[in-house]
């Protein structure tokens, strides 16, 4: 019973946080561009509007199941990320998983959806999927390397254990392992589909991207999972580098701070092409990661 309530609570928290954060993002973006942006609730309204569309076009069963898989993937991901530390609540099933599993779960859903995109028969959609996968290939390398540094630092893959080790500001991953945080920051932005790495599904002259063929309720599902997934990733980074959170307010605060940081980065850079993005990841963040490995792993072992 506890598990069920807890799970529902986690899903609700991540959904609410999701549309509020994105609403805020739209506001902020507008203000930077000297516009009155939409209301902070706009994302919620949009989402609901999609869900209550009277007609939805499909292209066969696989097309229908794709969004279901990605949604189930988002739920699963959320449930395997511990939201709070030292608490019985908002834990989901995180004690049955680990960091590597979460990284992979983040990809399960999008791959499921890719099947639906392929099933639609729209080549622009498939092109978007390929771009997404290509970008994933670029970002995952430094991202995982940064996380591996954290895993090595704490000698575990358990998010709980990593969180538990960061009691107090001085023990935050951000403080003890800042270079790892720098390594993952840009890939993290890309994994949130944030600018300047948002070429997948970005508005371009020919509408392309994984979502090109979706409409109505199915598009609503895609939007929902996107917001929840973003929150799951934010919380994960909070857990790993910012000591986690002991209650929901601290969680929102820390996640928001992190969100603000990524948003600021996103807002000032122009968009990169896919191959530019990949090349960038393999040069800058990965180079930084290699440096980090040399500094924090090789040198201590040789000097010892």
């Amino acid at each position, binding site marked *: 019973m506890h598990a069920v309530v807890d799970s529902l609570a986690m899903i609700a928290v991540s959904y609410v946080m999701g549309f509020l954060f994105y609403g805020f993002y739209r506001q902020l973006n507008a203000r930077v561009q000297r516009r009155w942006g939409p209301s902070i609730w706009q994302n919620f309204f949009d989402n609901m509007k999609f869900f209550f569309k009277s007609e939805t076009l499909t292209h*066969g069963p696989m097309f229908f199941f794709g969004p279901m898989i990605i949604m189930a993937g988002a739920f699963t991901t959320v449930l395997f990320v511990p939201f709070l530390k030292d608490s019985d609540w908002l834990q989901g099933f995180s004690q049955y998983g680990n960091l590597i599993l979460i990284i992979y779960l983040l990809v399960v859903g999008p791959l499921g959806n890719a099947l639906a995109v392929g099933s639609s028969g729209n080549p622009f959609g498939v092109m978007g999927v390929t771009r997404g996968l290509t970008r994933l290939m670029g970002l995952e390398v430094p991202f995982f390397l940064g996380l591996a540094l954290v895993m090595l630092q704490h000698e575990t893959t358990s998010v709980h254990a990593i969180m538990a080790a960061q009691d107090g500001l001085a023990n935050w991953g951000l403080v003890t392992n800042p270079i790892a945080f720098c390594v993952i920051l840009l890939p993290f932005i890309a994994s949130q589909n944030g600018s300047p790495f948002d070429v997948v599904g970005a508005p371009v002259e020919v509408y392309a991207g994984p979502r090109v063929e979706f409409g109505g309720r199915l598009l609503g599902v895609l939007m929902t999972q996107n917001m929840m997934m973003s929150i799951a990733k934010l919380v994960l980074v909070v857990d790993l580098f910012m000591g986690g959170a002991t209650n929901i307010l601290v969680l929102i605060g820390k996640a928001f701070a992190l969100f603000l940081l990524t948003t600021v980065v996103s807002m000032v850079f122009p968009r990169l092409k896919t191959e530019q993005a990949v090349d960038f990841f393999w040069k800058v963040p990965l180079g930084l990661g290699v440096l980090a*490995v040399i500094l924090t792993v090789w040198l201590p072992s040789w000097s010892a």
Partner: protein
Amino acid sequence: MSWMLRLLFLAVSLSPAALLMAWDADLSWPLIEGVRLSLTLTPLAGFFLVLLALVAPLIALPMLRRPSDVPSLVLFVLLLIGMQLLLLAGDFVSFFIGWEVMTWSSYLLLLRSPRTDMVTSQSYILFNLASAFLLLAGILVFYSVTGDFLIRAATEVSRPQALSLVVLFGLAFLIKAGTLPLHIWIPRSYDQAPDLFSAFLSGSISKMGVYGLILLLTLFPDALTGFAGRFLNGPAVGYLLAWVGVITSIVATFKAISQEDMKRLLAYSSIAQVGYITTAIGVGSSLALAGALYLALVHTLVKVLLFISVAGIVLQTGQRRFNDLGRLIERMPISFFGVLIGIIGLAGMPPLPGFAAKYLVFVSLVDARWLLLLAAMILASTAAFIYCYKLVYAPFLGHANSPEAREAREAPWPYLVPQVILMGLLVLFGLFPGLAIDVLIDPVLVGLQMAPIGSESWAKLSTAYGGYDGVVLMLVFGTAFALVTGLFLLLRGRMRRAGSPHDLSFAGEVPTAETPLHYGAGMGRELRRIPLVGWILRQGTQGFYLGLAGQMRAAAALLGTLYVGRPQTWILIAVVVFALSLAVQAMMGGL
């Protein structure tokens, strides 16, 4: 007569399984003076025998479909016998005999395909024989050191001897496993071999190289710990091997992405997967070996599944290129699920066991503190998503691109039964990641005198670095899926099926049947624009080997001019040689 033959064949294909259950003693067979074959079953060999026992009948079943090719059946039986001999070998001579029987019978099977060309068959046999002869040379060095042929730890070897042994054996097994730059025979032969035999090549025969590599570790108990010092928290020699493996994976993965043919793609993917295994063996810790064995298990199941599915597609459509297929999901749904489950396993996605295997390897790399290797491996395994997607998209999704693809029917049942069984096995191992650890892998580790991984329950994979629970994962995902689908359907509003496949949001235009809508072979082409990937794809070793072959032929021509058809020349040469050697002797000895 005919059905007797079939029954017999099926029975033989079950022989590895029978052997596994019934084997309880050692056997020995004299060969020549001082050489005695002795057969015994070690836990390590047992593991690979399990793989063989799983795969052999599943491939035998579709092979029996009429009209069956009797020579192929005979050769397959020989191949199975050879592999069992290889696995049961307690001494190097029987190991070598098994290895060779496997080599030539598989070569002859390769010839049964009408598509095999000369370059393929020659590269297959020459690389494999080179591997075999290196192995034999290693065996002879081993013999000269230890005085017998028994496979056992060589403790009394000196350093140069050990080095030559490692190089000879290592090269032999790396050729078989197909690591860079010794892989060139693999894509061609997996592609052109008879479709079902490709499954066996990739699923079982490539594992023999892996078996050999692990066996090599047992020859030198300290090979991976103290042989040439340590690097960080792992063996320095292994670090090199691990990089060989991971570079193999990266290059092969990018090559796989750029392929336009299903079987070639699978071939490169096979090289990449074996590259991971090589990496794991290089790490050499108990975790890593567990990972290597797990990967071997998963790769066997997955590749056999995928190759059989692909064989079914080729059988029904006659097409193997991505551009000529498409939209088979509606015509071959079971094959679609076969490929889908296969690529999920191949990509190492949870909840299928591919993830458990990769998890073990990743953790072992963290444990060894080889993070750069880990990053490189992540690169390969993420890039693999692209070809996995291509493999399911191009044949099954999108638009049918040839008349055959439009009219295909589901593969016949002998192709489907193995697929269903393999899907079941994959799901089973995915639900219970500890099952494979407990039943298959831990006995091997104990046999190798390493710490077993252990599992508190079959549902759990647990390591010192944490683990996960396959049943919970599957339950959560399944429940979420059911919940989401249910809620979605409860919502108001109706679903409308698109009127035609061309009813698309297509840049404001209305596509017709003539519009090229299938992304097929083009997928991943733009990857070339990434500088590193473009550079990798431009490289190749084929030129080197073709050059070598050309040089050999030139040498043959040059030496062939000695063998002229004129008796006077023969006599002249004889007399001149006679006179010269007499003169030399005279000068040296003073005649």
